[in-house]
């Protein structure tokens, strides 16, 4: 889908090239993460793909076509572009922002309008509520969602993303990452993703390209980067705690059993008491008849609160993760809420089970023995 051939970029007045004889290929529907320290040439490489930056030497082929022969405006209209600072247009409403590329492509206004609404829903925003607002009225995470919706607007086969989640806090970032991976499963875009964060690279990438001083050091799948880093540079980048890094590669749903272990709303107090005592975390989750997570009952709640049924005794759940969250996300949330567990739900709110700190530790231990 995208092929780089001897790609080189020299900036005037610089001793060494910013990008030096890069050769790599990204397959259709793949997420390729360019990772490396600042100044390694990852952003420059990305910008050469949509010709925001012209290569000094070498060629880039998109779908077999030499990009230097395509009109840059036409080329860019078919490549989604998301940057760290988002760059939403402050004087336009969210709707107008998302409609940018369709309007540049002169789509009929009905089609543009429909597409805008569809996209806002896709990235988890309410077109009614947010569409007519200006970017300044949205939180950082919401703005980044709009940025992604805007890049997806004309359904480009390729997306370039330059540290798209770097400007939001850690928890929001892992949410956005998970949502994005879920979207990607449906959309199947070819994505070039730039980051300096190796954790993000391991989590997001189908393949990771490690760059240093403009040269490609290693280009491989995340698992292989972790287990067989090419040389000291990659080993240092990945870090010593490689078994913990593997938590990025395992999804919650992979280690949860079939039985979620929750109880129904009308469970009597006696049964609850018994279940809580049996539980490792002294807490039991309560679900309704549809399987949605409603609350939880712990030893504390059993003592403090009256009532005979789970429905009356249960407390609110502090936080949840989705079943496609990585174990590392789950760990972050546990630390955030200060508990040794976190309930897992599906994207549509169904309870899937509870991850505990111990189950994570078991994973780390088994990975370690595997190494």
């Amino acid at each position, binding site marked *: 889908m995208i092929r780089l051939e001897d790609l080189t970029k020299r900036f005037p007045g610089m001793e060494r090239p910013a990008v030096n004889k890069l050769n790599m290929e990204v397959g259709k529907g793949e997420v390729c993460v360019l990772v490396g320290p600042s100044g390694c040439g990852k952003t420059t490489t990305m910008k050469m793909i949509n010709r*925001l930056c012209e290569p000094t030497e070498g060629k880039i082929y998109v779908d077999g076509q030499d990009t230097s022969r395509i009109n840059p405006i036409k080329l860019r209209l078919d490549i989604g572009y998301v940057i760290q600072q988002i760059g939403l247009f402050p004087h336009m409403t969210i709707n107008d922002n998302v409609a940018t590329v369709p309007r540049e492509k002169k789509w009929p206004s009905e089609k543009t309008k429909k597409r805008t609404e569809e996209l806002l829903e896709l990235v988890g925003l309410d077109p009614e509520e947010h569409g007519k607002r200006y970017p300044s009225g949205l939180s950082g995470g919401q703005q980044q969602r709009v940025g992604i919706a805007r890049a997806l607007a004309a359904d480009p086969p390729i997306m370039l993303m330059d540290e798209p989640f770097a400007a939001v806090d850690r928890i929001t970032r892992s949410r956005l990452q998970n949502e994005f991976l879920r979207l990607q499963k449906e959309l199947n875009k070819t994505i070039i993703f730039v980051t300096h964060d190796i954790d993000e690279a391991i989590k997001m990438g189908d393949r990771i390209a490690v760059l240093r001083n403009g040269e490609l050091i290693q280009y491989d799948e995340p698992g292989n980067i972790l287990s067989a880093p090419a040389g000291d540079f990659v080993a240092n980048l990945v870090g010593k705690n490689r078994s913990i890094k593997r938590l990025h590669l395992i999804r919650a749903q992979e280690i949860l059993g079939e039985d979620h272990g929750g109880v129904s709303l009308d469970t009597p107090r006696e049964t609850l008491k018994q279940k809580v005592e049996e539980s490792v975390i002294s807490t039991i989750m309560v679900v309704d008849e549809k399987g949605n997570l409603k609350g939880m009952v712990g030893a504390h709640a059993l003592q403090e609160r009256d009532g005979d049924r789970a429905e009356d005794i249960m407390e609110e759940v502090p936080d949840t993760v989705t079943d496609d969250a990585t174990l590392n996300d789950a760990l972050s949330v546990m630390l955030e809420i200060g508990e040794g567990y976190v309930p897992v739900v599906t994207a549509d709110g169904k309870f899937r089970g509870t991850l505990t700190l111990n189950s994570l530790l078991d994973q780390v231990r088994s990975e370690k023995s595997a190494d």
Partner: protein
Amino acid sequence: MLIRILKFLIVPVILVALGVGVVYYVVENPTDSMVARMLTYDFIIDSMEKHLIMVFVSMVAAMAVGIPVGIMLTRPTFYYVGKVIENIVNVGQTVPSLAILALFFTFLGLGFNTAVFALWLYSILPILRNTFAGIMSVQPEVVESAKGMGMTPWRILSRIELPIAYPIIIAGIRTAIVINVGTATLATFIGAGGLGDMIVTGISVRREMVTFTGAALSALLAILLDYIIGRIEKNLVRWS
């Protein structure tokens, strides 16, 4: 909608009423026969008209030059030219307005055209400088994302940069127009007429009422124009 128009009209109506009140009062109640001979409806309206034409013509011409040149200077090709022009115009602005008038009448002669030319020159700077500053204030990532999405340079200018720069450009026009109305009262020294006629004659014949009329009318005019442009800005910019 109707309420908004009415709200918009309150201040202008008050200002115009004040002006009409002042004119009516001084013409109907002259302090002596000399004032009565000077302050006639014809003379006041004629001065006002000349003043307005001077301000209007010089402002339109200043915008016609200041905005395009300001935009041009923000283009990378003209970056260094821009620095030079900006400095020249900055130095130009430090010359007192009266000196500018004096300077130009030596080779352009006396009269209305010279006054308009000097006012035009004097009004370019705030407009040019603010246009330049306004476009430069657009965050680089906004322009980069527009470019990355495939907008042409012309579309980026017209759809992104100029709309974001509007408030600053309009602020420049406001500054220019207030200075312009004030400076236009000096045009009387080179025989171009305007409200300055009343101020200067009033002083030279020691009739305060005449001076007051000219001063009051030019002040009201400045406030009125400033207000109108301020409202236009508010209606144009809904997003900040």
